[in-house]
């Protein structure tokens, strides 16, 4: 039972980070119908950026985090303006490819500047673990869960009550109608990308802190995000969160119980088996909107 609980809690923590990145993915998809395969690279940039600010410039934690988020937002805006704007209206495969190309460029930049070794992330959380009943939980994990919870609340309130949030939902629903209502769809696109970059950067900082090390493998999370968003539903933010937590827990449980049987590597393939299952049973995900095709 203890083993199960430990796996489940680890799964929840990892899942919360998947949920963060998935939220960014879903926000971009909802607002612009673009599938951003470069989400994992935003994570990388957030992690490395905060690492540089903390170690090279010795900024205090809050300043480093805020500056990283600001830079991430600027990057999101720049990418939307330079790369995605010319591709409005192109078929979906072109858009997928452009984000794949973008992910290659970002990964190359990170690799070129910082190399492929693991860099240690400074200890930002005290190392004494919290005790959740019988199970020790490291403080970094608890912070990560807390951050995701906080973000969920913040975004729910933003989308429900603020003017910009409602404008984004309107654009996601129908761009033409939103334009005719006077909403600047261009600004909404830019905002969506900025938010997604910021959210991923937070995920990157958290991951760096949780793992106490930053390396290229963070980008692989970008691939793991795809089963999460499909499970939750491509256009549903609560779905992204539910999907993230579910996939985190399920992959950890699968890894914990099936690894001894199969000789390892189950954790990597489990989310994709779940993906295939969901695509066969409920292709639009748990909370996604069913697309009705009209000829």
């Amino acid at each position, binding site marked *: 039972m203890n083993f199960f609980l430990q796996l489940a809690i680890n799964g929840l923590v990892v899942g919360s980070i998947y949920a963060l990145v998935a939220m960014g993915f879903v926000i971009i998809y909802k607002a612009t119908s673009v*599938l951003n395969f470069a989400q994992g690279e935003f994570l990388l940039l957030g992690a490395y950026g905060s690492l540089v600010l903390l170690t090279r410039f010795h900024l205090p934690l809050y300043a480093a985090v805020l500056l990283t988020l600001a830079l991430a937002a600027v990057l999101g805006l720049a990418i939307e303006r330079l*790369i995605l704007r*010319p*591709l409005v209206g*192109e078929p*979906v*495969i*072109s858009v*997928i*490819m*452009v984000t*794949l*190309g*973008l*992910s*290659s*460029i*970002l*990964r*190359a*930049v990170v*690799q*070129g500047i910082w190399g492929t070794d693991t860099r240690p992330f400074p200890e930002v959380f005290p190392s004494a673990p919290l005790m959740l009943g019988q199970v020790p939980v490291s403080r970094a994990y608890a912070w990560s869960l807390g951050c995701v919870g906080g973000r969920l609340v913040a975004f729910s309130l933003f989308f429900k009550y603020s003017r910009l949030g409602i404008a984004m939902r309107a654009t996601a629903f129908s761009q033409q109608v939103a334009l005719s209502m006077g909403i600047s769809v261009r600004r909404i696109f830019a905002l969506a990308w900025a938010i997604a970059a910021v959210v991923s950067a937070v995920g990157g900082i958290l991951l760096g802190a949780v793992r106490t090390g930053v390396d290229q493998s963070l980008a692989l999370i970008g*691939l793991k995000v*795809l*089963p999460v968003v*499909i499970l939750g539903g*491509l256009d549903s933010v609560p779905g992204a969160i539910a999907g993230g937590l579910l996939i985190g827990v399920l992959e950890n449980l699968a890894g914990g119980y099936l690894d001894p049987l*199969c*000789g390892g*590597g*189950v954790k*990597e*393939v489990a989310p*994709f*088996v779940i*993906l*295939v299952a969901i*695509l*066969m049973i409920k*292709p639009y995900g748990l909370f996604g909107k069913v697309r009705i*095709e009209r*000829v």
Partner: protein
Amino acid sequence: MMRCGDFKTSYADDMAIFDSGFARWGLGLLLLALLAVPAFASGYWMDVANRIGIAVIAALGLNILTGFTGQISLGNAAFMAVGAYATAYLDGHLGLPLPAVIPLAGALAAVAGMIFGVPSLRLKGLYLAMATLAAHFIVEFVVTHWHAVTGGVNGLSVPAAGLFGRALDSDAKLFYLIFPLTCLLVLFAKNLFRTKVGKAFVAIRDQDVSAEVMGVDLFKYKLLSFGVSSFYVGVAGSLLAYQAKYISPENFPISLAIDSLAMIIIGGLGSVLGSILGAIFITVLPELLRLGAARLSDVFPGMAGLLASLKLGAFGLAIVLFLIFEPDGLAARWHKIKTYWRLYPFSY
């Protein structure tokens, strides 16, 4: 010489691959010239030429599926792995002769492709891309864990290709296997789209609901498209096994599938010429970068260390720039250039 208008007077003329005798003879001469390449090229460039041939076949397979039938697939690496491991097993363990191994490897890959194509009946666009991505990871898992057949993480060594009793152990000799095979498969693909099956594929891409209304059996033709495409990719994987002489799961990462997608997008979706041009472009780009970095390393020391990230960055940049400025690909640009010169100076 070159026709400056489109005046066809019979169905046969309309369906012909070549517009004029000049085009036919020109291509024939080009192929003959290419056959003479091994006499001039060094060992390294023969390796590049072989890799180009393999890439052309793989890109052609993917283009049949994605460009002509509209089914986005990220599973190219997985099906190449199936073809390669099948070759290593059939030739290494079972000792079958090469003319039997390559078609069998292709057939096994075609079966795998059809299995993973089953979701295509219910899924479209992004969702199908996700399913094929999952297929990649599942195949990778199977390959890494099925030690008995695939050697697990350690991989398998592939015996040298042997044809008519002689071993094809040098890159030049392998070229004489790969090049004719490539030409044959290109011709087959070109002809495929003059037949009923090929036109059914294109109908599915353009508007599948209407195609179904017109009597095209969607499921049968989608599966057939997956099968034909995976056959091509399996043959490419098989040739890759013979060329690399040692295969392991590391030969087939997801970036291989992304490379193939880049080839057909840069080359031009739905165009046989596009697959060839795109494959050449993507295979030669890292080589040019390597040469450039070697020349510049005197001026900028440390350039050699940056080479890996330069290759990755240039690849991404090429994709992004092509998609922004040349979304229809190299084949479309080639046709535009040809049309311009065909009608010069009266291009309007």
